[in-house]
Every structure is written in C-alpha cells, then in structure tokens.
C-alpha cells in the first residue's frame, strides 16, 4: 500500500491555525522587544481612576515646599555663619523693612527715590534697597521719617557686581540711563549676552547674590578694559514699594 506523501508547502499558509501561531509568536516578540510597554501603558490607563487624587497631590507639593523652606533656612544659616567667619557681609531675610516710594526722580540730574521709612524704623545710610526684580539702590541718607535712595542708574554711582557663570567681578557704573555699564576688572572677559549679573558673594558692602540685571551688550575689545551694558531687572520708574535690607550686624 502506498502512503500518500504529507502535504508541505504554501498551502499551509491557507490554514488558520498557522496564522494563529504566527500572531502569538509575533505578539510575544513584540512584548519582549518593547519591554512590556503596551502592558504598562494599558495598566496606567486602567488604574487612572483609582490613582491618588488632587488633594493628595497638593499635600505632597505642600510637603515639598515646607521641606525646601527648611532646607533654604538651614543653608542660609550655614551661609551666614560661614560669611561671619570670613567677615563678609550678610543679611537676614527676616530683617526687611517695607517702604513706599513717596517721591521719585529717576531721570533727572540726580536719580533717586524718597521712601517713607527713616531712622525711626532703623533705616540708615549704606543699607541696600531692593524692589520687585532685584537691587534698586543704596540708601544715601535718612531723616527721622524718610530716606533718600540713590539709584543704580545715577550717573557716577558705582557698586561691585558679579557674573556667576564666568565667576568674574566688575564695577557697575550708573550712566544716567536704564542700562548701567559693567566695567570688568579682568581683561579676558568672557561675558555673554544673557548672563545674569548679581551682587558679589564676596562683597563686604552689599548683601550677596542679589539680582541686578542681565547682560545686553558686551564689548570685549574696549580699552582700557572690556565692559558690558546691563539691563536692570528692577525698574525704578515703575516701583511703588521697596524693601530695605538690614544687615545682621545692625540692630
């Protein structure tokens, strides 16, 4: 008796069981290759309705904020302690005096603000004045009830400034316009447009790391020293309230 030869060939493709096996195999390979992405995504969609709600999210955020505040406070205390050890200037965030601007001369021969807090409230000459955006100026003189603030833009007014990105000092000089000039002490200045300008962390006159402005123009080849033009972040023309920073050593 002659046995019929088993049928092998393309006719197998026509059988549904072959496609089933092929699909299962392809699926397994796909799952393995994508490291189960589909399953995970499907799981995420599936459990979305029973995930922790917005209230819990708020609690977590609140907790993070508190943690950050504590961390900042600890770092500030640590920083102040180290600065004290190095005899550098420091300030305490709690010792701020809020004051309203009662008169303004931000474009005249003298660029100054008059504020409604004076010696009675502990404001003395040389204290730093900040507004929304950063450093505004320095207290020039104070009476019992008012103080006169010399703006950073006042022609000839000079303070030390610092660009943290390139770690270089410069002298910020008021030029009568809204854009004071930052004269670098180092000839090889690598300042770029967009660099943030702050008060020097090693300053013995001003509190450290207060924002002053952003570099808008750099002339690296200028003589006798390179300079940059700084756009102030705090606009004295628009500020109605300022804060006077009391130093830690002042009572």
């Amino acid at each position, binding site marked *: 008796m002659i046995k019929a030869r088993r049928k092998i060939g393309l006719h197998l493709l026509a059988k549904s069981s072959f496609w089933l096996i092929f699909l299962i195999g392809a699926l397994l390979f796909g799952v393995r290759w994508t490291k189960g992405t589909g399953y995970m995504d499907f799981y995420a969609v599936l459990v979305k309705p029973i995930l922790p709600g917005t209230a819990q999210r708020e609690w977590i955020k609140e907790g993070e904020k508190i943690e950050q505040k504590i961390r900042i406070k600890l770092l500030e205390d640590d920083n102040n302690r180290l600065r004290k050890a190095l005899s550098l200037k420091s300030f305490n965030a709690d010792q701020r005096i809020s004051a309203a601007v009662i*008169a*303004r*001369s*931000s*474009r*005249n*021969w*003298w660029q*100054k603000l*008059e504020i409604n807090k004076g010696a009675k409230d502990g404001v003395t000459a040389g204290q730093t004045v900040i507004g929304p955006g950063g450093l505004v100026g320095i207290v*020039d*003189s104070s009476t019992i009830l008012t103080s*006169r603030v*010399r703006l950073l833009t*006042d*022609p*000839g007014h*000079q303070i030390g400034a610092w660009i943290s990105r390139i770690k270089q000092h410069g002298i910020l*000089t008021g*030029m*009568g*316009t809204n854009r004071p*000039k930052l*004269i670098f002490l180092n000839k090889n200045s690598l300042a770029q447009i967009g660099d943030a300008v702050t008060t020097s962390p090693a300053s013995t006159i001003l509190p450290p790391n207060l924002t002053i402005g952003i570099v808008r123009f750099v002339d690296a080849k200028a003589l006798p020293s390179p300079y940059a033009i700084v756009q102030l972040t705090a606009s004295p*023309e628009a500020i109605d309230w300022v804060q006077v920073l009391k130093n830690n050593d002042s009572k």
Partner: protein
Amino acid sequence: MIRNNKKLLLFFTVVCLPAFVIGSPEWLKINGITPCWPVIWLLPFSLKSRPWIAFLAAICLGIFMDSFTIDKVSYIPSLVFLSLVWGRNRIQNNKIELLFNIGLMSIFGTICVGFSIWIQKILFYNSLRNHWFNSWAIYVLISEIIITGLVAPFFSSWLLLSYKKN
C-alpha cells in the same frame, strides 16, 4: 493789595517751591524731567532786587537746593552767576515782563544750571570722563530747557509782577 501780593510771594517761596522741588508733580514733567525751579524763582527776584540781595538770595537758594541732591555737585556756582548776570540787567524796562523775554531768560538760566551740573559731575566722577558725550545729560538738559521755557513765562512773570507791585 500789597499785603496780598506779599502773602502770595511768601506762599510761593515757602510752600510751592519746596513742594515742587520735593514732590515733582507728574503733570509738570516732560519725559520725566521737572522744570528748573530755582531758575524760575531766581529770575524775577534778580530782576527786581538789588544785585547784592540777588547774590545772597542765589547763595541761599543754592544751599536749599543742594539739600535735596545726593552728591557733592552744587547749584550754588550757576545760581550765583545767574544772579550777577540778571542783576546787571536790572532795568525798569517793562518789556522784560513780556512772556517771550522771560521764557528766553529762563532758558538761558536753565542752560547755565544744566551745564554747571554736568561739568561738576564730570569733574567729580572719573567714570563719566571716559565718555565726553553723556547722552543722559543731553537728554536731561534738552527736556529741562523745554519744560522750563514753557513753565517760566507763567510763574516767573507772575512773580515779577507781584514783586513790582510790592
């Protein structure tokens, strides 16, 4: 009438002048620049007073104005110079009361005061010497000239008439 004029003068000198200098009202500004109030006050006083009185008034006014500035730059040299120049022109000619003349004299005074402050600033601050062209100073000077030229004919001529009536 004379009494009233004296009261008006006293009111302007004791109340209005300090108020305008300190408060610098927004409605009396051009480009954020106030009129040159010492010039507006000194002009009629110098034209109607004896030269030495005008000289003393200029020094007093300069001391008063300097109390509102924030550096060593002083109003006194320019105001003294103006009091001497205007004191020499102390004439009884009625034409001096014309608004146009008062305006021109106040513009001259503002230019003198402005240049004096500018030069003193350059002398006192090394950083300003590097640039002979200080754009801020020209901006302030021109704005101050315009606003003083507009305001002075009203205030100064009124003060001059009040002095005359006294």
